């Protein structure tokens, strides 16, 4: 009997331990202040002007050189600002820098605003800008490789120069990249270790709870740009699109982006919530491996482009979060070739082209053959972007109607990269950014130039190469863009990669969130200072 009694005791002790652990976890991890926030988030009856933001990535770090940190701190938390801004047509406009010019082949000169202070009250001068940029160049190899800066020289308090190791027309564009946003010296402790972002933007860093990944920012009363709309913003990472949708529906967040595409119309119909669909600078594109036999034939590539129903895909796969695409650049971009029209579906034309290339269905199985070999291709893609796997399926089905058999494979990134390197693939569907920096040179070089970093198809056209090289030497923007337009026209004709659709972004917000303006140049979405809450 003694044993039985101790059983109960042990069970009781175990339960108690668990209970203590749980309650301690609840109280110790959260300060009193954040706790209040949480209740208000949920009940959503805040009187104050506080916005709860459902961010689409898990917030891992607030260091601007860490992964998504730069984008988060600059575009979503609006703590920092970049030297160069951009208009909705992607043309550049002054940011913290008022003007800039290329003085010689290897030197860019920038003039700074003279009335900007950091959140800690110190004035922003060329000296701070120099050390902020040098920090990024040292720690972020991508910025370093885009900027190609050999030195940064302070000319006077509000002027500095960037010397580049080679002719680099995209320097101002790179300085629009959120990672290059300017942070003050007090962002670092005495040992030079980064502690928190001290920027110049409309919102000040308040706290970051590393455990729950919640970033809180408060209004910067002394912002140089004038009045700031919100008192406070609580940014929490909710990586799952479904959960984001349910969170805004349940009133736990006031603003979020990219709920499942299929849910956009349903959520928009809910009282008090609006869904806005925009285009973002990213393309759903289908790369064709030009080293594989049928795809080296321009007629086959064009036929495939005619066989794909872009309108159907935009409507039924993307639920109109995205649009049919023509050239790689959004038609709203200032440098885009506006004459290009998306290929519209035309199975007859596709049939003619394929027949001309020698591909005919001789045995009546619905798949074309040439010299007894069936027209079979594989298509690989990945699942990190929700539109891709269903789009791959839809493309495969549409190509099949044109007599091309396509086998789709959704893969992990590691094995995908390996296959790309081995060349063991025919088609690759991906969603690629087209305005990492607002300048066409970067994308056209990487995508279409012989040996370009993202030239997966292995496309090589001497005409394209020379056009891009020529454009680099032209400083007049309109003249430059003319060359780029020509490149766009050529690749649209030759279709080394089929641009299927422009990527969309669904902004979901409560109706009481006012003053929001979508910024297409942002990397996901940008919180603007004018946003406020009116209940």
């Amino acid at each position, binding site marked *: 009997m003694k044993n039985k009694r101790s059983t109960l005791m042990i069970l009781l002790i175990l339960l108690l331990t668990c209970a203590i652990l749980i309650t301690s976890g609840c109280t110790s991890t959260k300060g009193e202040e954040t706790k209040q926030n949480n209740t208000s988030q949920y009940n959503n009856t805040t009187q104050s002007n506080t916005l709860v933001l459902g961010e689409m990535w898990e917030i891992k770090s607030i260091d601007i050189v860490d992964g998504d940190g730069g984008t988060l701190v600059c575009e979503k938390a609006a703590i920092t600002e970049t030297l160069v801004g951009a208009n909705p047509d992607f043309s550049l406009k002054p940011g913290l820098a008022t003007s800039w010019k290329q003085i010689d082949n290897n030197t860019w000169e920038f003039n700074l605003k003279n009335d900007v202070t950091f959140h800690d009250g110190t004035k922003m001068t060329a000296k701070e800008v120099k050390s902020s940029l040098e920090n990024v160049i040292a720690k972020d190899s991508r910025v370093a490789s885009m900027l190609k800066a050999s030195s940064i020289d302070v000319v006077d308090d509000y002027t500095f120069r960037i010397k580049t190791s080679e002719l680099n027309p995209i320097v101002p564009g790179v300085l629009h990249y959120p990672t290059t946003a300017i942070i003050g010296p007090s962002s670092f402790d005495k040992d030079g270790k980064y502690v928190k972002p001290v920027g110049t933007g409309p919102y000040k860093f308040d706290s970051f709870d590393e455990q729950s990944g919640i970033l809180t920012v408060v209004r910067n009363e002394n912002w140089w740009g004038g009045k700031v709309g919100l008192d406070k913003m609580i940014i929490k990472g909710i990586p799952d*699109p*479904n959960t984001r*949708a349910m969170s805004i529906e349940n009133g736990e967040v006031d603003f979020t982006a990219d709920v*499942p595409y*299929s*849910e956009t*119309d*349903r959520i928009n119909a809910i009282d008090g919530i609006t869904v806005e669909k925009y285009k973002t600078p990213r393309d759903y594109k289908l790369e064709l491996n030009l080293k594989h036999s049928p795809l080296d034939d321009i007629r086959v590539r064009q036929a495939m482009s005619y066989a794909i129903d872009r309108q*159907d*895909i935009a*409507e*039924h*796969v993307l639920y109109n979060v995205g649009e049919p695409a023509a050239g790689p650049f959004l038609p709203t971009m200032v440098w885009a070739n506006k004459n290009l029209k998306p290929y519209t579906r035309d199975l007859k034309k596709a049939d003619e082209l394929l027949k001309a290339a020698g591909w005919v269905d001789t045995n009546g199985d619905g798949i074309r053959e040439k010299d007894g070999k069936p027209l079979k291709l594989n298509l690989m893609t990945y*699942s990190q972007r*929700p539109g891709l*796997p*269903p789009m*791959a*399926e*839809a493309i*495969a*089905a549409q190509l099949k109607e044109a007599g091309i058999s396509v*086998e*789709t*494979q*959704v*893969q*992990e990134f*590691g*094995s995908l990269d390996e296959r790309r390197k081995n060349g063991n693939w025919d088609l690759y569907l991906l969603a690629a950014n087209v305005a990492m920096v607002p300048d066409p040179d970067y994308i056209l070089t990487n995508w279409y130039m012989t040996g370009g970093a993202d030239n997966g198809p292995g496309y090589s056209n001497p005409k394209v190469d020379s056009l891009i090289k020529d454009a680099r030497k032209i400083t007049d923007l309109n003249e430059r863009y003319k060359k780029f337009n020509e490149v766009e026209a050529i690749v649209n004709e030759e279709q080394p990669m089929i641009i299927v659709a422009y990527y969309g972004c669904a902004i979901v917000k409560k109706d009481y969130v006012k003053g929001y303006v979508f910024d297409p140049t942002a990397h996901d979405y940008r919180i603007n200072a004018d946003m406020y809450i009116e209940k």
Partner: protein
Amino acid sequence: MDNIFADKFRKEGLLLPEAYGSDFVKKVFQRKDMLFALVALLLFIGLALFAPLISPYNPNTIDLKNKNLSPSGEHLLGTDYLGRDLLSRILIGAQTSLSIAFGVVLISLLFGTVMGCAAGYYGGIVDETLSRVIDIFLSFPGVIFALTILGVLGSGVFNLILALSIVQWAHYARVMRGQVLSLKRQEFVLSAVTSGAGDFYIIRKHIVPNAIAPVLVLATIDLGHVILSIATLSFLGIGLPADIPEWGAMLSAGKEFMRTAPYQTIFPGLAITFFVVIFSILGDGIRDILDPNHEGGEIY
């Protein structure tokens, strides 16, 4: 851990060879729940076998304009997010799901039984080594383990079977080892050993037939669990290629449409649930019949 199990089984003495045969069948027929489960299982297998004949549409035909449809006369269970007929996909999906489930259980059962027999029968250093290996495989969270293996192998039906088998076999090995350990001390085995019978003969004739009951019970219940594992893996992002109809993958793909087109999750979800229920009832029933005194608690 293994000591406990060995002792537990020794104590319970799961040695009921006489329960095999006609008596067993009679007992099955006496239990209403098992009868129900058996009929349902046969129905499932029948549907899977004749799926290509009875499914109204090609399960992979995409019809974007008719996506996310609710059940209607034309599509009895509605269509999925690419306009594929759900009824056809669930019917053909039964083939995939059933073959994966049986494949995994068969492979892990065979391998696990062999390993468990070796460990339990030979004892000593063989047992020590194998027990450690079994422990290692058991202490790894199964989902994570399968996820990593699939990352190495890549997705696909065969790789899925392989990965889940690698995760599962240790459970069989552990149970088998416990059984063999207790059997080894039974008189009929000892007398066989003294009479000079070969190891293989003893294992085949005396050990396996007497030890297999709890392993079979585990296998039956596992058949359902494999289907659940596939669903979980699909949810975590490594499942099967999208064009292969499989219940778990369908359920996972449909979760985005739970609000707008709930049938895409309801039907595959129900199929999985019924399947798991059937095998739980069968497994539990078999255990009840073979070992009326077990302590596991009734499933139903």
